[in-house]
């Protein structure tokens, strides 16, 4: 690449008299800048290639093998038949739809609560620092810790919430209530994150525009829907996309709250169980690849549906 780029500049340099030095220096600068940039990025890129890109390719390969660690001798190439096994398995589809359900419900609730919290954090007249500090606690706390707090809260006898709904019940041992608690735990933890991303969008809404709308007689709700929301659209897209993809990989909360009992497994739990409990690398990798594909589809649909305002896409506009 570099040597090819050098040749024409030299030729030009020799042909002309007045500019050659300046040109050669400029292109040397450009080349130097590139080399420096690549050097600076190289370590990060190498790590990401070695620990993310390569394992993903490797997992595609593993997913084409019959590979059970309990029977290593039977390892052989079996094409796509792992995919057939997984895609015809009722446990996979149960886990898949449970994951979709948890994702959709919790992201929807988070969006509403997160918008409320964002407005409070952005606009409150008193105690802004206190609110922001408090809101960061659910964001920062270790998910497993929060999950244990919820588990003990709903454990009959121990918990202060256990008798809240129906006395004497064990909500974590019934499917519907267990799912509700999983969603509650997920929502509690991630509303502040959603709110912070949305708050960054709120900050972009010009006060003058809101005032002008108010002068024109727009109600608070109209100002919110007609002025604030459209301006916030990129922030909303980013927040929803981040949270949807994040919710889709839900693992910690379910692991602690139900361990996947009562058919509350998410795809991540199911994959983990196949891999580390079942020691079936072939099937585990197949599920890994399927989850990866699903996530890619979700991201693609988001960007297509909401426009191309993907983060990082518009480097130049930022300046």
């Amino acid at each position: 690449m570099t040597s090819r780029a050098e040749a024409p500049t030299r030729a030009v340099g020799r042909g002309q008299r007045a500019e050659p030095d300046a040109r050669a220096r400029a292109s040397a600068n450009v080349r130097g800048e590139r080399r420096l940039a690549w050097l600076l990025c190289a370590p990060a890129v190498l790590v990401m290639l070695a620990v993310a890109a390569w394992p993903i390719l490797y997992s595609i390969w593993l997913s084409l093998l019959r590979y059970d660690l309990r029977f290593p001798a039977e390892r052989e190439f079996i094409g796509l038949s792992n995919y057939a096994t997984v895609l015809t398995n009722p446990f996979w589809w149960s886990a898949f739809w449970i994951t979709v359900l948890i994702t959709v419900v919790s992201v929807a609730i988070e969006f509403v609560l997160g918008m409320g919290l964002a407005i409070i954090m952005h606009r409150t007249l008193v105690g802004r620092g206190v609110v922001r500090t408090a809101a960061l606690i659910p964001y920062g706390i270790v998910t497993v810790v929060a999950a244990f707090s919820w588990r003990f809260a709903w454990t009959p006898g121990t918990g202060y919430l256990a008798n809240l709904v129906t006395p004497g019940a064990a909500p974590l041992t019934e499917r519907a209530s267990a799912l509700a608690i999983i969603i509650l735990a997920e929502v509690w933890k991630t509303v502040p994150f959603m709110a912070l991303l949305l708050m960054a969008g709120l900050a972009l809404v010009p006060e003058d525009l809101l005032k002008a709308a108010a002068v024109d007689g727009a109600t608070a709700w109209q100002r919110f829907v007609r002025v604030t929301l459209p301006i916030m659209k990129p922030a909303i897209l980013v927040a929803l996309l981040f949270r949807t993809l994040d919710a889709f990989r839900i693992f910690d909360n379910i692991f602690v709250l139900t361990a996947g009992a009562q058919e509350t497994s998410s795809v991540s739990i199911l994959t983990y169980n196949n891999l580390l409990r079942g020691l079936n690398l072939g099937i585990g990798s197949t599920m890994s690849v399927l989850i990866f594909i699903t996530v890619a589809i979700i991201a693609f649909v988001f960007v297509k549906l909401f426009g191309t305002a993907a983060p990082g896409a518009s480097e130049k506009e930022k300046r």
Partner: protein
Amino acid sequence: MAAPSETGRAARWRWGLLDTLVVIYALVPVLWIASLSFKTPATIADGRFIPREWTLDNYRTIFDTSQFVRSLINSIGIALIATAIAVLLGMLAAYAVARLNFPGKGTLVGASLLIAMFPQVSLVSPLFEIERSIGLFDTWPGLILPYITFSLPLAIYTLSAFFRQVPWDLEKAAKMDGATQGQAFRRVIAPLAAPGVVTTAILVFIFCWNDFLFAISLTSTERSRTVPVALSFFTGDTQFEDPTGSISAAAVVITIPIILFVLFLQRRIVSGLTAGAVKG
């Protein structure tokens, strides 16, 4: 949403009430697990939010077991090392992204974003197999490597957003005023860039400290198990009669650093999380 002009006592009360709701929302689960950790074995199952009898026995118990102490050392060591390396590599790349023009910049930013949104479980199967075959399974580096990888996108993204705001021309100005390159960097640029670096380090540390999936999949013994995993292995039938108190105490211990960060560095964390989020 309040009208921009809204003021007055009623409004202040209304905001005060909403603030209180937020604080209660955020604190109740934390106070609950703290309360459990101070309860005696006799009262732990009474279902009351505030302990009737207070004790520190749960804390004594966990600090007497190697299971917890060892995992705490692992957690701290692994998170600190991973944070240091991720921030260092992130700084190099972020400087290039924020300051230099080079082909492949878009690809780098895009690819690292892809990794940030990646379903981590997809990496667990191949990493499990790779780490077993090269002897990294159940070691510190075996966890540090995936932590670096998954926090690098966050680090690059946040740092480059901060680096864009640094007025780099000041460096030239300082040199014109007679400062050497080193002085210009130390006295002018480093203090301006430091807040962004600190913020990023906190966010990355929280990420590593929080991880459960990699930690439970890529470890198998006390050698490298981190606290979140050790917590989930506290069981009643072996060392502890009823693990609730011990789990709660251990949970409180690993929440302390988070609370400290949040209390003292709230502004930085908020600015870090919102820095690169929207401007596109």
